[in-house]
C-alpha cells in the first residue's frame, strides 16, 4: 500500500497543522509571556528505510540533539517525537525564567513540558478535523545529547511509515527551533488520509 500523500492532501494537512500550531502559539505565548511563532514549513511521509535519513536531513546531519517521545492512542495511534538542538535547550531555559543555572532535572522537566504542549497541540488539532479524541501517555526522554544520525535505528521500527512535520518554534528574537516527528502504523496513516479527503470534500 502506497502511503504517499497527493499534493492536495499534503497541502490540506499542512494547513490544518498550521492552524493547530497557530493556536498553540497563542496559548504558549500566554504561558511563557513571550511572543511565539510557530510555522510548519514541511510535511512528509517517508518510507521506513528513509526515515532515519529524512530526519537527519531535516534536523541537520551530525547535529547533537536531545529527544522526547510520547505515545498516543485513539482513532489514530502512534508515537510522536520532539527533537531539540542543544543550543535551543539553553536558550529556552533562559527565556522560561530560570535565572540561575538550571539543574539537569529542571531542564528535563522543561523539555518534557514543551514537548507535551507541542505534540498535544499538533495532534489534537489533527484529531479535531477527524472529530475524534486522542489520549496521551506521559512523555519521556528518548535520548540526550546524541548525534541525530543515531537517534533512530530503522531496524527497530515496526511500522512502515512516519509522518514528518517540521515545526520551527521561535521565541522572540531567539531562534529556538525544534522538530516534530510522528510515527504511525499504516492503518492510522490510511485513516488520516481518509479524514483529510472528507475534510477537503467539505470545501
Amino acid at each position, binding site marked *: 500500500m502506497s502511503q504517499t500523500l497527493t499534493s492536495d492532501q499534503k497541502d490540506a494537512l499542512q494547513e490544518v497543522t498550521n*492552524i493547530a500550531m497557530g493556536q498553540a502559539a497563542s496559548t504558549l505565548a500566554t504561558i511563557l509571556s513571550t*511572543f511565539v511563532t510557530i510555522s510548519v514549513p514541511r510535511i512528509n511521509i517517508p518510507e521506513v528505510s528513509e526515515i532515519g535519513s529524512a530526519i537527519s536531513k531535516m534536523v541537520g546531519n551530525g547535529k547533537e540533539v536531545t529527544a522526547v517521545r510520547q505515545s498516543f492512542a485513539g482513532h489514530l495511534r502512534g508515537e510522536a517525537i520532539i527533537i531539540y538542538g542543544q543550543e535551543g535547550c539553553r536558550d529556552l531555559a533562559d527565556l522560561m525564567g530560570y535565572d540561575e543555572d538550571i539543574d539537569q532535572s529542571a531542564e528535563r522537566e522543561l523539555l518534557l513540558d514543551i514537548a507535551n504542549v507541542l505534540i498535544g497541540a499538533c495532534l489534537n488539532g489533527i484529531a479535531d478535523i477527524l472529530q475524534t479524541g486522542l489520549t496521551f501517555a506521559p512523555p519521556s526522554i528518548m535520548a540526550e545529547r546524541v548525534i541525530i544520525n543515531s537517534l533512530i535505528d530503522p531496524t527497530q521500527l515496526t511500522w512502515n511509515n512516519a509522518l514528518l512535520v517540521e515545526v520551527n518554534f521561535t521565541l522572540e528574537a531567539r531562534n529556538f527551533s525544534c522538530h516534530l516527528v510522528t510515527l504511525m502504523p499504516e492503518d492510522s496513516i490510511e485513516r488520516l488520509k481518509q479524514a483529510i479527503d472528507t475534510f477537503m470534500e467539505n470545501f
Partner: protein
Amino acid sequence: MPTPILVCDDSAMARKMLIKALPSSWNVEITQAANGLEALEAYRAGKAEVMFLDLTMPELDGYGVLETLQKEGLNSFVIVVSADIQPLAQERVKQLGAIAFVKKPVNPADVEGLLRQYGVEL
C-alpha cells in the same frame, strides 16, 4: 461592477476555505496568489482593491507584502488572515497598515461583519 479582490495564501486549501467563507452576495472578481511576490504583482495590476493576506508564506511573507504596500502608497484594504492570533502579531500587522485581522479557520460571520463594518456593499 465586481470588486477586484485578492486571496493570498501559500496553501491552496486555505485559499479555498477563505473563498468559501466570503458572503455569497458580494459581487467580486477573485484573483489568487500563492506568495507575497505574486500578491504584489496582482496588486500592481489593479486586482486587489481588497486583499486577504496570509502571514507565513515562502518567497515574501505577509509582513513583507505590507511593508512594500506601505512604501507604494497602500491603495488596498488589507485583511490579514492568520492562524497566529497573538495580540502582538495583530498589533504588528495593524501598524503596517492592515485594517483587520481574521483568525483561521475563517468564520464566515466574522468576514461578513468585518466587511459591513467597513461599509462594503453586500
